[in-house]
């Protein structure tokens, strides 16, 4: 094979050194021989590709992909709204970036021994479950035997959550531990329990297996970021410098079905920037937990069963905005507004929603290194706003200043 054909093949396979690649691309501009060699190499490689064992994609993948064709929602009116203008005018990034894990407690210091045991069991069950729904599992290939067997042997996650939440976890008794327990039970866990219950039944799809995998992965990281002694070795890895891109969030939220206890909703995305959001897994876990809190607050109040999750950068300089938006009735919005402003009403059944908002508030205090909530609220670093017939919930996170050269997750 002459040098040109070899170069074309290496270029096609992505193994030509960068400098030589640039030279080869320059040749393509005015050399028919180079172009012919490239076309031939591509066709050779494409033929090899077709020899791969044929596999079938599920219909839910097609639905997700075709969502690309739907027009993006226009967020300009929201970005021009008063709270975001205020945020734009007042936002300053802290000098020392928050690395995540600031809300962590030691599980063995939780006073309630039953809580300790339940949290440990939950973590162990999820460690067992995760590989059974991973992309190389039998379940991912359509054989549910092992997954069903394990799920039937485990206690139901839904029942565990209900049982643990039956009695309020006292802040006076548990201090920050209460927050860690609630973060572990109320952020990704309700959706996780919904999908594990569904997979334990008869009516499910391959998309449910995939969704459960992402939820298990997130839940494990959220629990490690909440309890520093639950899995110290993996936590050490989570704390290493490793950039986490917005694409990771987009992948799991795009076209997903979301559940918060009995409420279900369909997620739509559109505006996800291309770049890193957090520097470490442990920070990403906290970010993730906040995103789930937004979704859990909004999805049960959507008028049409849909809600948007979006990640917008540079609308506010040095800041990444996570925005959840859904069409809501005025009553539904008023309820959200009360929750966001901590106004306790006589409506029962909203205790967990107040806790979800408090989890975001506490995380904002840590991320922006403020000492009082009023400072955060004055700066509109998070909030609830109504425009036309939609409710918007958001939180701001400091953008990464410079790429510190860490590995990419």
């Amino acid at each position, binding site marked *: 094979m002459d040098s040109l054909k070899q170069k074309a093949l290496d270029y096609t396979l*992505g193994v030509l050194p960068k400098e030589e690649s640039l030279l080869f691309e320059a040749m393509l501009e005015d050399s028919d021989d180079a172009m012919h060699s490239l076309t031939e190499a591509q066709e050779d*490689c494409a033929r090899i590709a*077709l020899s791969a064992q044929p596999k079938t994609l599920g219909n839910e993948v097609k639905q997700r992909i075709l969502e690309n064709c739907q027009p993006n929602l226009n967020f300009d009116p929201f970005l021009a709204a008063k709270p975001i203008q205020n945020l734009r005018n007042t936002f300053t990034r802290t000098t020392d970036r928050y690395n995540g894990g600031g809300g962590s407690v030691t599980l063995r210091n939780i006073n309630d021994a039953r809580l300790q045991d339940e949290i440990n069991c939950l973590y162990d069950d999820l460690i067992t479950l995760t590989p059974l729904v991973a992309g190389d599992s039998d379940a991912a290939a359509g054989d549910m035997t092992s997954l069903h067997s394990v799920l039937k042997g485990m206690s139901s996650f839904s029942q565990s959550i209900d049982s643990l939440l039956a009695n309020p976890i006292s802040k006076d008794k548990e201090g920050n531990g209460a927050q860690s327990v609630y973060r572990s039970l109320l952020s990704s866990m309700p959706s996780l329990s919904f999908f594990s219950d569904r997979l334990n039944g008869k009516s499910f799809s391959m998309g449910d297996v995939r969704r459960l995998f992402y939820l298990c992965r997130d839940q494990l990281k959220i629990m490690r970021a909440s309890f520093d002694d639950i899995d110290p070795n993996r936590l050490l890895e989570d704390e*290493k410098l490793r950039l986490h891109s917005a694409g990771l969030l987009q992948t799991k939220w795009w076209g997903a079905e979301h559940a918060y206890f009995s409420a279900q909703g369909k997620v739509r995305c559109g505006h996800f920037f291309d770049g890193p959001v957090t520097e470490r897994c442990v920070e990403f876990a906290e970010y993730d937990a906040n995103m789930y809190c937004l979704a859990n607050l909004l999805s049960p109040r959507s008028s049409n069963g849909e809600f948007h999750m979006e990640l917008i950068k540079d609308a506010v300089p040095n800041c990444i905005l996570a925005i959840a938006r859904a069409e809501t009735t005025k009553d539904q919005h008023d309820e959200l507004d009360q929750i966001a402003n901590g106004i306790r009403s006589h409506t029962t059944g909203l205790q967990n929603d107040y806790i979800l908002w408090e989890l975001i508030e506490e995380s904002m205090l840590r991320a922006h290194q403020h000492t009082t909530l009023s400072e955060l609220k004055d700066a509109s670093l998070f909030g609830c706003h109504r425009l036309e017939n939609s409710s918007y919930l958001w939180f701001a996170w400091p953008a990464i200043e410079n790429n510190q050269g860490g590995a990419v997750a």
Partner: protein
Amino acid sequence: MLKIENNIWEKIRDGDSLAFEQLYDGFAGAMFSLSLEILGDRWEAEEVIQDIFAVLWRKPDAYSPKKGKFSSWLLVLTRNRSIDRYRSRKRRLDRGESDEILQSRPDQANKDGAEKATASDEKEHLNRAFSNLPPEQRKIIELSYFKGMNQQEIAEKLDLSLGTVKSRTRLGIEKLRNSLSTLRL
């Protein structure tokens, strides 16, 4: 096997969602099969396909007819993106970073493409396509195509001279071109 209209890219570039759907129906399966072959992970392979289709819709000019045949370009892009992910995963393991998923399947890190291909019945179709190749040529093409190794890396791994790797690649590619030429693109 794979049928897409010659002008499908132009239609997608013009915002024709029906053409986008036709491309998916005609081609996503082949792209997914290739990605899954390389990555061995269904969810990761789905992500690769999802990303490529998103790019195609939002930035259709990522392709231009100057880059060769659209169908070939798509498969090469799928292969290269899958290889990038495979390398990224391998780097994490090489650094000794834990991963609850990868740790639960310890054979993942050490199996190379050839071992996996010969070990699994699922690779029957692939093996048949390569059956006419001498093993030494097949090994080199698999390492290059499905594992993204360059010729120097292959030479070091197999303890061969660079010249031998190059000549075996050339002979293997030429034989494959003949034996796989019936596959329509």
